[in-house]
């Protein structure tokens, strides 16, 4: 029997053709198609590329993409962020209407029923489903720090990854270990790509990950059947190609040397640059300033708080959140400086004494030297 296409599935959900076309426009926009080098280049060469048409054709002809969403060591903040997206939105379309089959946090089942549902979904869509992982995976004490239904997170992940066609790690925890990996890292938390090494893992880091970025990456796979171009940390270049600093609405204040010194001084009230207050924007790659949060309302820097660098590895241990980036991460203690100075001075004094005694010996009377001989 022919499998139901995404469009047919949406029709059954009560989505009209007009709404469907609007959705396709949203998908094309959110996927950052115009920012995809090959497509934008073809657009330049051939005039008007029908990018929305591409999306429409794909959704009309392709079967829906099943998603299995696992949660490990995390706060479920990434899921919370998804559910806070306003409806009907692109996120809602991709994740709720056409994709998610199994989501531990969101669905009603619990206990053994939930485990059975996961197994059923994995068997039914073996080799076809997209695995989305939220949360880090503990490897210490043979993975005992995070177990579901008596099985460790490592085991569940490996089993689910084996049948997945693509794997997406959403949030900093799943991508790089996140907060559970912060020193002293008692659970020896790892990101998905450190556990699953035989398949490409797309990292969508953030704390939480931007819902539109997660959904956009899924949508891209849904439409084109391929993963987006990734950077050296396996993040989609479309969304993680530019630093927060380079997109920042306060950037001109940085260039002009106007900085907020505290959270309530004149600079802060005037919306000046937050570099002095510890902004990690210069070394952080993400799409926050472009996509923003709450339907494009704002993002941390716009709201007056420095960027924490939450889409970078080990952001929790990358210096204090309110410590400027030019400040060294490790500084010697006063005792260490004292000891270093003491050692230097001692060696200097020793060499000086040795030199003087050598000089003294060299200046001793000739007769005395002869006498000793």
């Amino acid at each position, binding site marked *: 029997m022919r499998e139901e296409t995404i469009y047919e599935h949406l029709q059954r959900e009560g989505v009209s053709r007009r709404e469907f076309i609007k959705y396709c426009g949203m998908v094309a926009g959110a996927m950052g198609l115009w920012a995809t080098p090959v497509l934008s280049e073809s657009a330049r060469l051939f005039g008007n590329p029908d990018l929305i048409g591409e999306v429409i054709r794909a959704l009309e002809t392709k079967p829906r993409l099943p998603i299995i969403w696992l949660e490990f060591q995390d706060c479920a903040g990434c899921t919370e962020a998804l559910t806070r997206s306003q409806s009907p939105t692109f996120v809602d379309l991709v994740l709720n209407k056409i994709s998610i089959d199994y989501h531990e946090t969101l669905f009603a089942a619990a206990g053994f029923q939930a485990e059975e549902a996961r197994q059923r979904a994995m068997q039914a869509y073996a080799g076809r489903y997209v695995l989305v992982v939220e949360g880090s995976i503990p490897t210490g004490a043979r993975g005992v720090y995070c177990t579901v239904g008596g099985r460790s997170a490592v085991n569940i992940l490996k089993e689910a990854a084996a049948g997945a066609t693509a794997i997406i790690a959403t949030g900093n925890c799943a991508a790089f270990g996140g907060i559970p990996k912060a020193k002293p890292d008692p659970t020896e938390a790892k990101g998905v790509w450190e556990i699953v090494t035989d398949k490409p893992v797309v990292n969508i880091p953030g704390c939480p990950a931007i819902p539109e970025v997660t959904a956009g990456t899924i949508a891209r796979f849904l439409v084109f059947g391929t993963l987006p171009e990734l950077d050296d940390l396996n993040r989609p270049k479309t969304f993680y190609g530019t630093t927060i600093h380079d997109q920042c609405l306060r950037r001109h204040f940085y260039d002009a040397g106007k900085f907020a010194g505290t959270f309530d001084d004149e600079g802060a009230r005037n919306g000046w640059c937050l570099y002095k207050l510890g902004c990690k924007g210069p070394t952080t790659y993400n799409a926050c300033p472009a996509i923003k949060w709450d339907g494009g309302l704002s993002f941390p820097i716009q709201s007056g708080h420095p960027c924490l660098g939450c889409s970078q590895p080990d952001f929790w241990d990358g210096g204090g959140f309110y410590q400027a980036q030019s400040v060294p991460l490790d500084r010697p203690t006063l005792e260490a*400086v004292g000891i270093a100075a003491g050692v230097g001075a001692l060696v*200097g004094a020793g060499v000086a004494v040795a030199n003087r005694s050598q000089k003294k010996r060299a200046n001793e009377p000739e007769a005395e030297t002869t006498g000793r001989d």
Partner: protein
Amino acid sequence: MDWNSFLRFVRGPLFEVSLLVFVAGLAYRLLRVVTLGWARNRAPAAGSRVVGVGRSYAKGVIAWPFIPWVKDTFRGNAVTYLAGGLFHLGLFVVILLGTAHMLAWKSLLGFGWPTLSPSIVDFLAAGAIVAMIALLINRFSHPVVRKLTGPAELLNWLVVFLAMVTGYMMTHHLFFRYEVLFGLHMVAVDVLLIWIPFSAIPHFVFYFFSRTIHGVEHGRRAVTP
């Protein structure tokens, strides 16, 4: 190791070790200079030592360096005087009056100070870099300076130049990603910190030693050099 881990290493443990080597090395050099001693002068003092030191500083630090025609250096080799002056001015402003650097000092010393606008700091940094290139060319083109140039002098130049250039590139986001340039800048700074005690660069301390000693001698003898 990716660039982020590299950056954490050079901003963290390597910087800490470099700073300790810098402190130990400078303490060693200071002790060596202090314990050199000098010949005892038994002649009665003809003038005030304090006045001599004051005059020495007024001329050597505050006035003379900025009046070209009284300097032998200017008459002998104008490039050394002009480019050297521009380089030292730029370096001083960048290290002490640049916002990012002041914050680093503040974290080490516990107190901060007002800084200059980045555009001014930037202009002087660029000037210092151009001056360094001029000084390098001068090193090879001027017959006397060429004779005074050895591997140590070139290494001094290279270590300082790399720190300056990577810092400038980082500020302007030139050619490489920010974290790459930040990492390279910190490596250059760490190497510089380690190299300083073994080089002629500690003249930023010893210059004041020599001005003081000369001032004392001149004051005692009541002479105005």
